[in-house]
């Protein structure tokens, strides 16, 4: 249970003068949920983008299953099984929910240079798609164009697309952002059910969700990793309280 699947060492990302990721070393263990928390602008998205291959780090290395993947781009890492969902939802609006997922399922099967057979009609792909939709609570919306879904449903679809790819590591950036309480509740439940089967890196502001779901929590402040540990450890960590939780309470006050 404790093999490291994804590992960042000495990761640094600078935007001009700003150091958005400041010497972060992080190990994600297989089949665990690893949460990244931190105040706004702490560099969570930036870190996630480097893990997913969207951003190239200024310095440092990233290893996936022992392999150096630092120079692989977003697509290259997706082919390895590292998938991300975006903070801003990104699906194919003209396609039905079913088609969005079936395309992902077929991409997972290999190249798409096949010109005759319609993937919708392929039993295996349709089955995968249906089970993913079932799982993500979209089973009743298969024929609905993605463009008319509610915000929360679009986030579910985003997750369904990622699941259809049967990823090794799922990078989720604020999957609950902008959802109503009921929708968020469902999403938390769903993520909870995925925990046993997938390795998840979760960026999230909702502390309840984080402490519920995560096996490990890492705290970023100003690009630096200030603490890392089990939810209990983080909750009781004085420096975290001060640097982050305390800070948040000030914000609220």
């Amino acid at each position, binding site marked *: 249970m404790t093999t490291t699947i994804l590992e960042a060492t000495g990761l640094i990302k600078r935007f001009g003068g700003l150091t958005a990721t400041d010497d972060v070393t992080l190990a994600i263990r297989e089949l665990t949920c690893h949460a990244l928390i931190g105040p706004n602008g702490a560099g969570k998205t930036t870190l996630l983008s480097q893990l*997913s291959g969207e951003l190239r780090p200024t310095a440092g290395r990233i290893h996936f299953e022992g392999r150096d993947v630092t120079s692989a781009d*977003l*697509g*290259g*890492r*997706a*082919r390895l099984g590292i*998938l*991300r969902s*975006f903070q801003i939802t*990104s*699906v*194919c*609006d*003209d*396609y*039905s929910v079913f*088609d969005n997922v*079936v*395309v*992902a399922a*077929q*991409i997972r099967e290999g190249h*798409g*240079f*096949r*010109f*005759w*057979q*319609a*993937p*919708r009609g392929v039993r295996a792909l349709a089955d995968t798609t249906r089970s993913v939709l079932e799982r993500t609570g979209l089973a009743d919306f298969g024929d609905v*164009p993605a*463009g*008319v879904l509610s915000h929360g449903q679009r986030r579910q679809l985003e997750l369904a*697309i990622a699941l259809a*790819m049967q990823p090794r590591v799922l990078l989720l950036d604020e999957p609950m952002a902008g959802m109503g309480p009921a929708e968020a509740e469902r999403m938390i439940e769903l993520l909870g059910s995925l925990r046993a089967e997938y390795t998840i890196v979760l960026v999230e502001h909702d502390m309840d969700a984080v402490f519920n779901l995560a096996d490990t929590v890492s705290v970023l402040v100003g690009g630096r990793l200030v603490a890392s540990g089990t939810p209990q450890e983080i909750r009781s960590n004085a420096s975290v309280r001060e640097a982050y939780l305390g800070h948040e309470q000030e914000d609220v006050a």
Partner: protein
Amino acid sequence: MTLPLLIEQMLNGLQSGVMLFLIASGLTLVLGIMNFVNLAHGSFYMIGAFTAVSLQLWTGSFVVAAVGACVCAAVAGLAVEYVCARRLYARSHLDQVLVTFGLIYLFNESMRLIFGPQPLASPIPPLLNGSVTLLPGLQYPLFRLTVIGVGLVVAAGMSFVVMRTRLGMLIRAGASDRGMIAVLGVNITWLYSLVFAFGAALAALAGLMSGPLYSVNVGMGENILIMALVVIVVGGIGSLKGAFYAAIVIGLIDTLGRLFLPSAIATIAIYIFMAGVLFVRPQGLFAASAPPQVEARDNGNRVTILWSLSKSRQRVTASVVGLCMIALALVPTLSAWLDDPFLLRLFLRIVIFALMVLSLDLVAGFGGLVSFGHAAFVGTGAYAVAILGWHLDHGEPLALGPIVLAGTHDALVAWPLAIASAAAMALAIGAIALRTSGLYFIMSTLAFAQMLFYLASTPSIYGGEDGLQISQRSTLPFIDLGNRPTLYYLALGLLALCLLLCWRLVNSRFGMIVQACRQNERRVRALGVRTYLYKLLLFVISGVIAGVAGVLLANAELLVSPADLSWTRSGSILIMAIFGGLGTLFGSVVGAGTYLMLEFSLSEWTQHWQIVFGPMLIVFVLLARRGLFGLVLGRGGST
């Protein structure tokens, strides 16, 4: 080559460069700020030239003529902005292209009505007549020097306005981030009108100065427009500085190229240069930091995919398609019965054009790749057939590097070769054009097609501007294509086959990925798909279908000419695709049929049919967005 001659030629290059800048600057500002593609920008150049000539003949004063021409073009610019452009800022580039294409028809035909078809001669104003001695042995015409001077002064003035004034700040803000001016609380309507009118006046300035140098004729706007498009693609959309340097460089390349390069290469030197630039820097040399956000907007015209229709709709659609095909199959019988051979001729043309439109629909409707140079692929296929035939007839083998062909009329040899040439052309053009996206894609396909057009127009054994006659139809075993109905049935059969194959294709694994790319390429790439390869392959497949259309066209007309490769042809194909409804496949038949029948009946009625057709096109695009076949399909996948 003597030094004075070289200097003289460089000055000529500079002179054509500053003229290009005058046109490109307005175009690039309108593009950068309003995100609006104005193909009719060349019309302001033409209007400027015509107005200046007539005012000068009438009043005898060049100054009055010059001022009058600029004012006239500015007013025309304001009118265009107010009536059309304004409604299209938020629409797709495709809509903008079509409406401004309609405007070109309107303006060109109006000029032809007012001034007649003959080119006008424009005298050099007496004050600027004569030449100056710049160096011993170097006499240079004073008028050209003045043009250079005016151009540089305008460029300096614009640079001052843009860099130093509040207005310039707004313009710069608008060009790099359109949302920004809205935030600044500026009256955008006013700014837009101003920029539009100013750009039109600058184009007119170039037009009136071009009068004494070149000739004043209808169509002068289009040639210069395409060069200006090359300029802004090279310079980077929205960048004045880029437009300036690119214009000068392109002016120089064009002028000096004619001096130093073989003529066939000289005519296309600037396009080769553009291809090189795009290959290295897909956003042009001086592009504003962020690429314009255009990809998402180019989806506006799509209707639906057939699969996503409800069962009953599918049935209706299938019946309509079936009935249409049966009706088409009856045309030869009907034509014979009515003893009206023209009917068959028209429908043969419709079937062949439907293939062209289908080929375009595949890339534009399903791949979201709006190619504005599709005639190039059709023309390549047609020319290949003609050239192979020519070599057989003249007994001169055709040497392509190490391969020597005797030439042939045999369809089993010529057609595959012709289709392969079209596909190869699509591969070459696509490989470069697909490195870009959105607007750059539209413009680079247009420019590459234009390159082939000029190549075909260059005098050569293949007839140059006059085109190339084909002595006979291709020969097939057992089938006599010399018989028109037979050719028609073959064309119809190929059309049906291509429709069927395309229908499978767009719903296949490949097609699903390609369509996903159109909707959200970032998403698909994030899933690990190398989207470039998919788009390129789609482009090549489309080239194959275009090649089939080209082969049939050559056989139907027995003449190929540069007109078959021209950008007006590409534009017509695009219009047909929109008429039928993009992304509908069968809409191609409906679109081609509607367009050609409309063209036929309008031209029966008046020779100036374009003056009616232009506005019709504009109204159609402004009102009906889903195409005619889209109406049959009904409400599609998206709301």
